[in-house]
């Protein structure tokens, strides 16, 4: 799937969603359908090397108990060439007051350029929710179509400094059970990403931000990167906007 196709898919989804969420005829109706679509990150990452454009979008459609989730994150070069991306389509079932169990598919399209590894697809099983003290947390396990197993843990927190100014630390950890050399992935802990964004909410739906994003490759993955002449350490200043559609 190309970036263009994905964008089209998103636009189609965005136009369809309000139609599906028609008002009920009665005062209360079981299983009403609602929608949610948020770009948590739409940002430019500026660093020593080439700058990039990154996104992290999540959305859902469904009832309180059953939802279809769409998650996408990725990076293009500042010339718009796809560097890496993934899109997940998940069925989500409410477990309790705070957590959802999610299962579905992940698709990583082929990056642009000649060093591009082939597109890959995965089965996904995950849990997502709100931990005590208001930490947004998630854990996902991925099995690729070649049987390789990996996992991802993430957490984030919105600290309101004032009513509009929000400091948002986030952390993400990726782990693999085996080497996938053509993807530059070694077994063990692959990378740790820490970020701090300072956002100003113009409204609840529009919030420009600045921040820093630091990604450190680790273990085998770091070694593979160095062998390829890449940096195993990536520090970027980010400027972007959070949008709720």
């Amino acid at each position: 799937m190309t970036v263009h196709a994905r964008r089209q898919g998103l636009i189609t989804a965005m136009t369809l969603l309000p139609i599906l969420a028609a008002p009920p005829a009665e005062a209360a109706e079981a299983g009403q359908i609602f929608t949610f679509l948020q770009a948590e990150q739409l940002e430019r990452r500026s660093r020593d090397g080439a700058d990039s454009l990154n996104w992290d979008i999540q959305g859902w459609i469904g009832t309180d108990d059953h939802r279809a989730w769409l998650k996408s994150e990725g990076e293009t070069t500042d010339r718009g060439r796809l560097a890496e991306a993934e899109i997940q389509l998940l069925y989500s079932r409410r477990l309790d007051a705070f957590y959802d169990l999610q299962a579905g598919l992940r698709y990583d399209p082929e990056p642009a350029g000649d060093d591009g590894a082939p597109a890959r697809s995965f089965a996904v099983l995950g849990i997502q929710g709100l931990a005590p003290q208001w930490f947004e947390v998630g854990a996902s396990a991925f099995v690729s179509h070649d049987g390789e197993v990996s996992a991802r843990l993430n957490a984030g927190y919105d600290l309101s400094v004032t009513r509009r100014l929000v400091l948002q630390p986030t952390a993400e950890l990726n782990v693999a059970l085996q080497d996938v050399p053509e993807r530059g992935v070694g077994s063990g802990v692959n990378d740790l990403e820490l970020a701090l964004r300072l956002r100003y909410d113009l409204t609840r739906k529009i919030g420009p931000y600045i921040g820093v994003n630091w990604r450190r490759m680790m273990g085998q993955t770091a070694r593979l990167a160095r062998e390829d002449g890449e940096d195993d350490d990536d520090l970027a200043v980010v400027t972007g906007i959070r949008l709720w559609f």
Partner: protein
Amino acid sequence: MTRFTTAAGLSRRSALKLGGIAGMASLVTIHTGRRSFASAAGIYELAITADRIIIDGVSSKAIMMGGTVPAPTMRWREGEEVVVHATNRLDEPTSIHWHGLLIAGVMDGAPGFNGYVAIQPGETYTYRFRLRQSGTYWYHSHSALQEQAGMYGAIVIDPAGPEPVRADRDYVVVLSDHTAEDPMRVMSNLKGDAGYYNQAQRTLMDFVRDARDSGFNAALSDRLDWGAMRMDPTDLADVSGYRFLVNGRGPEDNWTGLFTPGERVRLRIINASAMSIFDVRIPGLPMTVFAADGQTVQPVRVDEFRFGVGETYDVVVLPREDRAYTILAEPIDRTGHARATLAPRPGMSGPLPEPRPRTLLTMADMGMGMDGMDHSRMAMTGDGMAGMDHATMAMADTTDLGRPLGWADASTPPGDKALDYADLVSATVNGDDRAPDHVIEVQLTGIMDRYMWSLNGRPFGKDQPIRVRQGDRIRITYVNTTMMAHPMHLHGMFVALENGQGRRMPRKHVVLVPPGRTMSVVLTASEPGEWPFHCHLLYHMAAGMMTRFIVDDQTT
């Protein structure tokens, strides 16, 4: 619009001059869309249309009955038969529910209940019922979120016998909350982020202030206590961005009721808002409450009262001075105010008091024990409530920081009297004083973080209907497990609030159950049918805080 407000605002005396009691019905002329025509006494044409209204000079979308927001005041007389032809000129189904009226199920107007089907676009439904009661009531849509968009109006039923009080002026005061947003969008925002409209969530700056006031450790442990539950002590109301209206007028429009100093003025105050619980007062003018939810109670003199969505209070005031008095209604989250004026001449306005501070919920509002006491079981259960009022509860919650703490703390000045449910004493002795045959516990439940609301943990559609037999004597015990107050409304029958008043328990159609508390009501299941039983906060009901209360007919 003006025509109606005038009609509703006419003094009792001038109304009588205009044609006596018999003239009352024809005085309430009904607009159908933009046309208007007088109807025969007791027969009304009511069109439901989508149009724009202007509030404080700003135009916004509305759905209305009879061409105005609020809808025309229905002035009826006990014992008469009323016929209302309601025509749906919207492009979606609609309905009209007669809130508080004792009525046959199919005329009650709640789609999906009692065989009543929503009025489809272009269709006319004819309501026909005989009035079995008198007092102040209201009517509103029971479909989708149309009530939020403007579909509400007052009902005044004059008694067949004498009025319980003498009044020189008689005004309807319809309080409501208006949003410029599409109500469906409001609901969708709440589902995406339940705290979307909370503009008062605690910040790092608040923490710094709390740490300075009460010490770092105390402030931190308070934050951790709330964080452990993933709850927010600033969660008083779910929706903000409202403009609060009196008879469809914003605070700038300043709806005005006229009086001559020394006259007795009757105010029929109706909380027709979608989501707003109000604290109501008229600074400098004590109010004598003599009816609650249309039912006469022994007069209580108060300086202010708090009332939930759907409740009504009839009060009498005696303005003696030749000056303007401000009627002020502040929602409990203090995000604005509704304001109107009582004045000897048009164009006057009274002083606007300083806004009162917003309270902060406490662990006691969560039903958590305080000083080893379990409030959820202690307060307001049957006779246990006697002698105990909101003021004492509030004092127990208040620390010495000078800020209001606890849901019940309305910042009532010392020495002022706020109405308490325990003060409501029915004017007549309760007809049925049998002990309850059945006790039904109804837990008020919700998952705030997901904006899910339910009764007994089951949202409407997955609910377990309550089923009783006609003639049964029932006690309903509300156990509020949430940190919000829920105005609980039963269609078709009055409930008697167990407020410690023995055989003079007040009869109500809405009972406001404070957060974390338990309250009980009793009723005689006299009206067979399948009645809606729900929280009257509109978005709570829409999210599923509703069930069926089925009274099996024993005569068939």
